[in-house]
């Protein structure tokens, strides 16, 4: 194109093709990054900038402590606000990466006099890191295939629901930054494998250190990289590059990871890390053999190799047999089978079967979280198998292992989502770039080329491209719909549709927590069921008895006993535990179904599961027909227990629904059975606007009678 022609073009086209190319790439990437940030803001726009759910509140509280008190007091922090009177050591029992990241961000911003509240840093950290993830994904895919695949993959990961589910604004949890760290480690590992340079290896070890500091899922990573090395050895692709890369990553990474006090000596002791150590040893042996082979003549090498193999083989078998006989190692235990057969864990470890996050994944939740990636992923896999390289083998292994884990456990969809995007990006861009070439843009070329191609080539290509665009558009719509419908409710502020279709906001939780904060003495002890522990300590800043870190069953059981006992008995327990206030969640007025009455049976079960609570029997709380009812036919034990009285105090005189009598519970759909009663040992301290949270004060001992 001559300069004269170029003069007439608009300004972007005036630049050389290289510059245009770069500009376009930058443009696509920045849009993807902005999209990934903004699509996670549904909950902030609908409600406000709040932290979601339960665990994030703990993270938020620790972050605030870190920014206020500094790293050393954070590291040595013994928390006396939780698990009263036991307390909890926090510094040594958490992964500090998340808190350190937000504290650093906070201090950097304040250094530049941008005064942003720490809560807002926490709320927007996950979206920020997901836009960084899109950039890392682009670079990783670029290393694996080419630039165009990288762009498609970056655009896809910006909106994939499987990743959004854990990284919406306000969901301030480890996973939010861990996926970024994981992909960064992979990117640097691929760089190290490709270049064989110590620099990239060391960088990879640093990224690995960041990953270890932020999420327990690093174990997946430290097994995946050795597996890659092993696969490269098996396919005869082992070289000095890989030797340098792996040795650097393993030795530096292990040393660094041991600096996290929660990880400690696990990298050299626990069996999850042994694969990495084994492959490290194998690397040394492999390169030693290569060295010998280069130095010795073929016959001598053969002799040496055979004797060595025989010697080492017998030695290993002998030592193994001795250790196994003496019971030092037991390789055929349950842990081993649970790797091979996932239903083993379900049958033999009940706690795994009971937790909803440990459920296996149905096909529809795969589709719900990944949409078209589900079938574009195999296409990308096909492309990778067509042209295998060192880096491609890595992504194939990552894909296969993570899809297996995601199938076993639904929460591991999070680990699968990035590789789905990368491989689908490769697949989509493969199809698009093949057919884009067939698409004739200028009329001039069409006439000259038409003779050598088939007649309606252009039309076919257009249809294919149109269909792919349609798929990508449906993908976008699907992702936005899923994000908006399923993953954007903060669960601390509730919303419901009113009769006229308007949105009603229930902000009772925060109302109650702030009431506690401002109206109770600073050292007051609040008793509630463990679900609300993190929120009370974080928002009300009061001491609680049990929280979401359910490490002490007997203590939780004691609280359950208090809730399930009659008033007199509960008073003894509450005096013993020094309780000043009791907080219950009650949904009967609004129809909020996950309230304490619905959780009550768990309190009874857990309360009755220890020695002190033997008098609490679950069947006492059922009707003779075995039903759990709160109305007139309910069991008298239930109608007179502390939890019932606290939830339904004064409720008997309230009209809730038209055409129904007073005291009609809208969750259980029943008129309550015990309406007119007074509390002896408690007095009502506060009830929120919609009665969602009710707080009671424990009365002092009475003055001695005359």
């Amino acid at each position, binding site marked *: 194109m001559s300069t004269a022609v170029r003069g007439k073009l608009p300004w972007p086209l005036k630049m050389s093709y290289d510059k245009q190319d770069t500009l376009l790439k930058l443009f696509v990437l920045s849009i993807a990054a902005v999209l990934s940030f903004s699509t996670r803001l549904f909950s902030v726009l609908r409600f406000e900038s709040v932290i979601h759910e339960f665990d994030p509140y703990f993270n938020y509280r620790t972050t605030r402590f870190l920014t206020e008190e500094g790293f050393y007091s954070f590291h040595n922090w013994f928390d006396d606000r939780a698990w009263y009177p036991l307390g909890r050591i926090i510094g040594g029992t958490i992964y500090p990466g998340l808190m350190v990241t937000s504290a650093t961000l906070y201090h950097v911003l304040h250094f530049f006099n941008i005064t942003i509240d720490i809560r807002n840093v926490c709320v927007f950290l996950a979206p920020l890191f997901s836009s960084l993830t899109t950039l890392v994904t682009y670079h990783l895919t670029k290393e694996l295939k080419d630039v165009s695949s990288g762009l498609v993959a970056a655009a896809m990961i910006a909106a994939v629901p499987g990743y959004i589910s854990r990284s919406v604004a306000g969901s301030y949890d480890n996973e939010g930054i861990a996926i970024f760290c994981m992909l960064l480690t992979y990117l640097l590992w691929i760089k190290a494998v490709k270049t064989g340079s110590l620099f990239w290896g060391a960088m990879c070890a640093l990224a690995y250190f960041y990953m270890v500091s932020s999420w327990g899922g690093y174990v997946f990573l430290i097994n995946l990289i050795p597996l890659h090395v092993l696969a490269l050895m098996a396919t005869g692709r082992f070289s000095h590059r890989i030797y340098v890369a792996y040795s650097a990553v393993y030795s530096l990474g292990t040393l660094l990871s041991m600096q996290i006090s929660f990880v400690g000596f696990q990298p050299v002791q626990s069996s999850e890390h042994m694969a990495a150590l084994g492959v490290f040893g194998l690397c040394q042996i492999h390169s030693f053999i290569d060295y010998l082979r280069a130095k010795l003549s073929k016959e001598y090498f053969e002799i040496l190799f055979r004797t060595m193999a025989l010697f080492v083989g017998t030695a290993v078998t002998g030592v193994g047999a001795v250790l196994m006989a003496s019971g030092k190692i037991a390789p055929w235990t349950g842990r081993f089978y649970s790797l091979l057969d996932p239903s083993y864990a379900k049958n033999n470890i009940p706690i795994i079967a009971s937790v909803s996050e440990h459920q296996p994944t149905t096909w529809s939740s795969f589709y719900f979280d990944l949409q078209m990636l589900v*079938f574009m992923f195999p296409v990308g896999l096909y492309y990778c198998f067509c042209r295998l390289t060192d880096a491609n083998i890595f992504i194939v292994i990552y894909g296969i292992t993570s899809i297996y884990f995601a199938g076993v456990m639904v929460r591991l969809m999070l680990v699968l989502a990035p590789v789905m995007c990368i491989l689908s990006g490769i697949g989509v861009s493969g199809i698009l770039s*093949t057919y884009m070439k067939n698409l004739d843009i200028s009329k001039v070329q069409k006439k000259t080329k038409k003779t050598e191609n088939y007649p309606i080539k252009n039309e076919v290509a257009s249809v294919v491209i149109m269909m792919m665009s349609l798929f990508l558009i449906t993908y976008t719509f699907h992702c936005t719909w899923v994000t908006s419908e399923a993953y954007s409710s903060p669960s601390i502020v509730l919303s419901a549709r009113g009769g006229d279709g308007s949105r009603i906001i229930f902000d009772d939780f925060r109302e109650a927590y702030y009431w506690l904060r401002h109206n109770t003495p600073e050292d007051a002890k609040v008793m509630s069921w463990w679900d609300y522990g993190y929120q009370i300590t974080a928002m009300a800043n009061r001491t609680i008895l049990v929280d979401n870190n359910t490490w002490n069953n007997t203590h939780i059981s004691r609280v359950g006993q208090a809730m399930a006992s009659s008033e007199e008995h509960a008073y003894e327990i509450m005096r013993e535990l020094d309780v000043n206030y009791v907080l219950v969640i009650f949904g009967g007025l609004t129809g909020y179904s996950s309230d304490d009455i619905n959780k009550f049976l768990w309190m009874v079960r857990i309360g009755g599961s220890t020695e002190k609570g033997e008098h609490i029997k679950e069947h006492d709380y059922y009707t003779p027909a075995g039903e759990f009812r709160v109305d007139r036919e309910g069991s008298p034990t239930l109608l007179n227990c502390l939890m019932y009285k606290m939830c339904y105090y004064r409720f008997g005189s309230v009209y809730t629904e038209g055409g129904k009598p007073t005291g009609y519970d809208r969750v259980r759909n029943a008129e309550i059975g015990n309406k007119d009663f007074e509390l002896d040992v408690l007095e009502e301290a506060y009830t929120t606007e919609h009665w969602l949270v009710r707080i009671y004060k424990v009365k002092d001992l009475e003055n001695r009678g005359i």
Partner: protein
Amino acid sequence: MADCRKIFSTFACLSVVFFLLVVDSPALGVKKKEEDDEEFEWVTNEQRNFPYPSQNALGDKVQQLMEWSSKRPVIRMNGDKFRQYVRAAPRNYSVILMLTALQPQRQCTVCRQANDEFQIVANSWRYSPSFSNKLFFASVDYDEGADVFSTLKLNSAPSFMHFPGKGKPKKGDTFDIQRTGFAAESIAKWINERTDVHIRVFRPPNYSGSIALGLLFTLIGGLLYLRRNNLEFLYNKTSWGIGALCIVFAMTSGQMWNHIRGPPYAHKNPQTGQVHYIHGSSQAQFIAETHIVILLHAAVTFGMVLLHETAVSKGDVGKRRIVTLVGLGIVAFFFSLLLSIFKSKYHGYPYSFLIK
């Protein structure tokens, strides 16, 4: 699992035969004990006049039960047997009864697990040295004895009940599954509480994992040995690629869910007789459904690969065009089919394509 249970039971049977040969016939022992109990409990004027029929009725019952339980540790009962042997009065033995619904169409996975545990307890009792005619294990399936459920006023399965030797079951004679679970150990503990019979639970060691593993290794080893002259096939990308794709399709269609949860193949509506292959909710799925989905996924992927292959290959122009169009059609059709199935599971899902 099934194999090893079979092995265990044959082994157990052999040991029982041996036991019977060594100890003299247990029937004699039974009679002696009965006589003691008879006098204690059933001596009334009427029975003094006709002592033999009653005694014989009880004796026959016990003998019959012993015979059954030597064949099978858990006696399967229907309504008649239940009334005759468990409910009817002349009785000096305890019966632990499991009420369950094991028929596949009942879809009661808990029942199956509970049944396994119950079998373990019953086996442990049957082959324990203290085995006697004081305690029998029996089970009633809902489909064989629905009347038993109605007489006991039960509307859920599985449940365990203890029928003591004297009198009617009391409150504690119904095992509380909700609280204690149904592990064999807790069942045995409960039995101990109710009947004073101590059963040491003996779980058959599970060798199936080791056997499967050994089999796998020998298979691979054998294959390698057979092909030892030409190990090139190990480096064949295509087979590895096909293997990888199989894993991916299996996982994305939820085979792992099926493996862990064990859903039925399809659901037949008992009223209309219509067979549903797609589960109506997004929380669950049928085996048939995953097979359909696996096909759909594979078809869309195949269509995509077809599109790519024809574009880069150098073949006959006309043929390539047709293949491209076929690929396009496959992709569009199967994608919209997938979408419509998904829509039927997720109520309120707003998008569809070609097919409603």
